[in-house]
């Protein structure tokens, strides 16, 4: 079984968000980057599938050299090799095009992405890759097993689950539930990571279809006022006078 897991390099969830260059560009200064969480879960499940059967796991990132630490973390978690497409990740179509270009002659059985990356939350790359490769796309994968050359997949749908089966190859975008928790790289994995191949390929040319005009930060969340449980009068007064909700 050959699995490709596409991972994006995103700011840590607790990172401070600010923008530079006229609010067009995210300020990466002093920010710690991580593997986007849904992709980390998808990778974890991919590793389990491989360990239960056999095969290889490749991770792929579209990004510059500063993405390599998170890629090596993926190798430390247990991926066999890594491919970095040497260009800044731009919009979803651009990224999907780069991924499809790498994947097109490699006969991956499953290509995993995350349901969305947690920085720009575009939720499109997986579907676009599938379209470009002309293979099925399965979104919101919250569970997956493999039997022979068939994926047995659980999808989360509104208010419940859907069970589906799909022959290899396909693209699955992972979400919560695909693995219970991300795998923590063990010492052995960390030490093996430096010996695993991290191949760099140059991007194909592709003109962006979208342009970022500006970013704005959400309004600061107002603080929470705590009221003692037996002080209902005060709650009513605050709702009435300050929140003007009643």
């Amino acid at each position, binding site marked *: 079984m050959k699995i490709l897991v596409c991972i994006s390099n995103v700011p840590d969830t607790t990172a401070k968000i600010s923008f530079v260059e006229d609010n067009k560009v995210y300020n990466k200064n002093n920010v710690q980057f991580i593997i986007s969480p849904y992709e980390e879960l998808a990778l974890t499940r991919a590793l389990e599938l491989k360990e239960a059967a056999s095969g290889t796991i490749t991770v792929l990132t579209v990004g510059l050299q500063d993405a390599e*630490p998170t890629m090596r973390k993926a190798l430390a978690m247990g991926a066999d090799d890594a491919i970095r497409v040497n260009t800044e990740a731009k919009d979803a179509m651009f990224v999907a095009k780069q991924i499809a270009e790498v994947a097109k002659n490699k006969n991956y059985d499953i290509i995993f992405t995350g349901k969305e990356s947690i920085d720009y939350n575009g939720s499109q790359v997986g579907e676009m890759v599938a379209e470009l490769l002309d293979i099925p796309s399965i979104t919101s994968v919250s569970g997956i097993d493999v039997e022979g050359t068939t994926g047995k997949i659980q999808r989360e749908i509104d208010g419940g689950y859907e069970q589906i089966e799909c022959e290899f190859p396909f693209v699955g975008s992972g979400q919560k539930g695909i693995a219970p928790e991300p795998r923590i*790289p063990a*010492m*052995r994995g960390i030490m093996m990571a430096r010996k695993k191949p991290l191949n760099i390929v140059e991007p194909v040319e592709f003109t962006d279809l979208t342009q970022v005009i500006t970013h704005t930060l959400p309004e600061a969340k107002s*603080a929470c006022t705590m009221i003692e449980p037996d002080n209902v009068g005060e709650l009513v007064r605050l709702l009435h006078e300050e929140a003007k909700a009643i």
Partner: protein
Amino acid sequence: MEDTKITTGGEFLIKKTEAKDIFIPEEFDEEQRMIYQTCKDFLDKEIHPNLDRIDDQEPGLMRDLISKAGELGLLGISVPEELDGFGQSFLTTMLANEAIGASYSFAVAFMAQTGIGTLPILYYGNEEQKQKYIPKMATGELAAAYCLTEPNAGSDANSGTSKAVLSEDGKHYILNGQKMWITNGGFADVLTVFAKIDNDRILSAFIVENNWEGVSLNPEEKKMGIKGSSTRQIFFNNVKVPVENLLGARGEGFRIALNILHIGRIKLGVNVVGASKIAINHSVNYANERKQFGKQISSFGAIKHKIAQQAILTYASESAVYRASKNIDDAIIEAKKNSDGKTNANIEGSAKYQTECALLKVFGSEALDYVVDESAQIFGGMGFSAEMPADRAYRDSRINRIFEGTNEINRLIIVDSAIKTAQKGEYDLFGKAKEVMAEINNLSPVLNGNESYYEEKQKYIAAFKKAILVTIQSMMDVLKRKLSFEQEIMMNVSDMIIQLYVAESLALRVEKLNDMKGDEAISIKKDILDVFIYDVASEIRKFGLDAINSFAEGENLKTLTNAIEHFTKVGGVNTKDARRRIADTIIEENKYNL
């Protein structure tokens, strides 16, 4: 050019160090950071959600967590690869210990397992002993403990009365005795037990398995803090210890005990850095949430002062502990090169820097006590509530000043080892001290007014060293052999040395960081340095004056007072504004971000 590389412990008292020659934590590489992150991820997944269950000593839980840490390889980080470990450097091991430091009782269990539990066998065991025990300790299959303390032998560890007598057939030692305060005692499979053979004056060490006949345990101690860590009395009643389980040579036990403790001390010194950082995070999270008088309490100057001071002590402590760790790493590499095969290079390396190990333990444990104390204060009434994290941190911190040698014992060691190393001729403390003594009747200004920012700091530090040398030399001149009876003065000198070492390490780190990252990126670090040097100057002055007033008289006292005051004079600092800036960055990011 003047040689500025530190090559032995205590030498910092007389030598100027260049910023480029120290290691700073910003230089950790990607792999080391990944190991740190794995430790943190492990805590987030296994420890932090279970703190109450751990503190309730849910049966089997701590033992299970040790195994889980073992599965990730965290118990074998410093164990050589031949013994199924990962052969990482001392620095990397220290970084991992910092991460684990944020795990309360688990940190204590972890330190006992990987430190005092594993290291005696790893560093003093013969090949069979190592092969038999170490790989399984590194995976967590075997849990380990270290049994030195007895009801009547704590600080005076060599006075223990546990006894081992060779059996008639010469195959066993028959071990009898009682050990107390044994961390991991409730579940440890393998114990390093210190006892005297026959009527020896000095301890020997034995490897004892807890399922051997005659080993029994008291119930868990009821403790103020680290409630989740197992602490037991262990009794040895005619336990038959095979002769091949003698660890090291007969009579070598006390040396083993002490040498293992050097490593334990510096590791404790880094552990508390991890504990401090998480306590600061809790403090600032709360200060940013809690409103009084219509404002977040983090907007009040009094609270900012506390947050800044917590951060200053933590950052300073961290600077010092990694500086010394690199010195030890270098000494280990050097010792490996020149190894005669008799002593372990790791032991040689850390023993060489025993002054630093002791002072980092003292400074770090007291810094953490400040941090957790003020954390409880920031939480106000909630700081007193067992529902909030400030309470656990506060109670768990206290042990650090007591074990691995009490801070009093460690303060004595600081002065004693610095002097003894010099007396052995390893560095010229007294030559340098005499030079300074010659200077004090004719003092020249510390600064000439043309110094750059870092030159000024370095000159202050050089002057603090002179204050210390003057105190040490005059103390030895007056007290001579009576010195060891004058513990109060030893404590004073020790405090001067501690403050100096940390201040110098901080100054060198900020300077090196400045070279790496440029002025703008490090402005807060300069604030930290400004405040710290300003504070340390007055501490060193006070401790110096306390000391000399306790032994000197007349003209001599006048000259010494003048000298101490001269060498500890520093420029004024707007500490209020500096602390506000430090606090503000932490408040803004809502976490320790230095």
